[in-house]
């Protein structure tokens, strides 16, 4: 496994009195795509929220690139280079496409680098440039998902957290999004932690995967192995 970029050690999280994570441990290596699978309510989304700081973490340790981030608020975690594309995509609906992208680079100061990344993002998503003035709320679901990914890239992140990128999207759009994610990973060494209902897709795109059950890691291992694992196949792949 490559050098760890993100490490979760026995992380617990709760919504009010309800405990959602019962001690999750996982790692994401530099330049690695890691998938988190599991049924509804298993704690997949909460795991991402615990990392980015949008849920109350009640125990354990999270280390990102040498920084302990277990107690840091979301804006501080974002500033360290973690880009969380949340459930529902976090589209800033009333702002234009261009303004959404610009906010992706909000924490950066290097103007030249930002302009360069703008070009880079436009090369992955050419339509973003032509429709920069359009209000982001008028985009289709698939377009909003791509905008969210593009916006995340604008922060020049070291790790992207993707929450259910396929949710509610047409199969073709989903394939396209995963193709771009893999391309980003291969070409630029972007590390990705992706939560996905579509286990087949996630296991194809990722190097390693974790299967969560009621707030705990039930199975973990290389994705290729998990695809052959009988219980994973029965529960999540359906064959």
């Amino acid at each position, binding site marked *: 496994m490559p050098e760890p970029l993100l490490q979760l050690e026995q992380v617990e999280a709760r919504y009010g009195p309800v405990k959602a994570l019962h001690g999750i441990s996982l790692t994401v290596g530099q330049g690695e795509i890691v998938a988190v699978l599991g049924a509804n309510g298993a704690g997949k989304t909460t795991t991402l929220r615990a990392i*980015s700081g*949008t849920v109350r973490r009640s125990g354990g340790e999270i280390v990102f690139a040498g920084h302990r981030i277990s107690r840091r*608020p*979301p*804006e501080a975690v*974002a*500033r360290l280079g973690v*880009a*969380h594309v*949340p459930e529902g995509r*976090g*589209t*800033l*609906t*009333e*702002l234009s496409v261009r*303004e959404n992208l*610009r*906010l*992706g680079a*909000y*924490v950066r100061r290097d103007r030249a680098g930002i302009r360069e990344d703008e070009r880079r993002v436009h090369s992955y998503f050419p339509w973003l440039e032509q429709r920069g003035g359009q209000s982001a709320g008028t985009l289709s679901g698939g377009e909003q998902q791509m905008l969210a990914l593009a*916006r995340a890239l604008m*922060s020049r992140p070291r790790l992207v957290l993707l929450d259910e990128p396929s949710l509610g999207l047409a199969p073709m759009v989903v394939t396209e999004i995963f193709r771009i994610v893999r391309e980003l990973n291969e070409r630029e060494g972007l590390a990705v932690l992706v939560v996905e209902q579509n286990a087949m897709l996630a296991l194809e795109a990722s190097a390693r995967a974790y299967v969560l059950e009621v707030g705990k890691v039930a199975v973990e291992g290389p994705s290729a192995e998990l695809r052959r694992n009988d219980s994973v196949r029965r529960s999540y792949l359906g064959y």
Partner: protein
Amino acid sequence: MLLAFDWTELAQQVVVGLASGGVWATLALALVLIYRSTGVVNFAQGEMAMFSTFIAWSLVHHGFSYWAAFSLTIAISFLGGVAVERVVIRPVEDAPMLTVVIVTLGLFFVVNGAARWIWSPETRGLPNAFSTRPIDVGGVAFSIQDLGTIAVSLGAVGLLWLFFRFTKLGLASRAAAVNREASRLLGVRVSWMLALGWGLAAAMGAVSGMLTAPALASFDQNLMQPVLLYAFAGAVLGGIDSPFGAVVGSLILGVLVNLIGTYVDWVGTELRLPVALAVILGVLLIRPAGLFGKPTARRV
């Protein structure tokens, strides 16, 4: 009767209406700023503006010129607005809407009480910001004061627009108003954006107060209460979630109220406030989102 209609007077009355509408627009914009970021109407906005006006009065009283006092008061009000948000609103940031509304109501009484405690009840006035001479425009005599008031209030509105439209900080505060969590994930310090909004709202309120006071022979701590009602009516007319709507709505209301007051005998000067209230009621019944607001659908 119709033939003898005095177009000069109509033009003059429209300008008078725009002047009051402009003043209301600055306060209406303050209301909209806070409504968009926190989802509540700040009932204390008028009292905060009154407090600012008293600060301006004190500065003038200590020898500052009107415009020096004007600029200084805007700066003080901005800082005061930020402080109010940090101290009073921050603790209830995530509380239910009603809680925040009650807090702003409480703030109304605290600010009003503080102003009464600091400044004794005596007649006081602010000097005229503009020459009281009339000026001839196309054969019609307008008051320089009215035209100046329109210019200053629209100038303040324009500066605010430039800030939100063209600066990074302005963009971030718009983002924070649309989606708090998504903005935090982008590294925006949303909590400070709320404070910034309160500061800007207080500064806009200060402008409205300092433009209201000089036109009056004397003023007291109730100075801004009618203005708040007019501003609220203007904001509702234009759409409480639309900054553009609040400005246009206030200007329309200003002209409307003034023309009705001038040409409908039984309304006169006494019944203008009820006209504004009738506008609120009418808008809420016919088009609750206002002229420029977005109608919202909610699933139940």
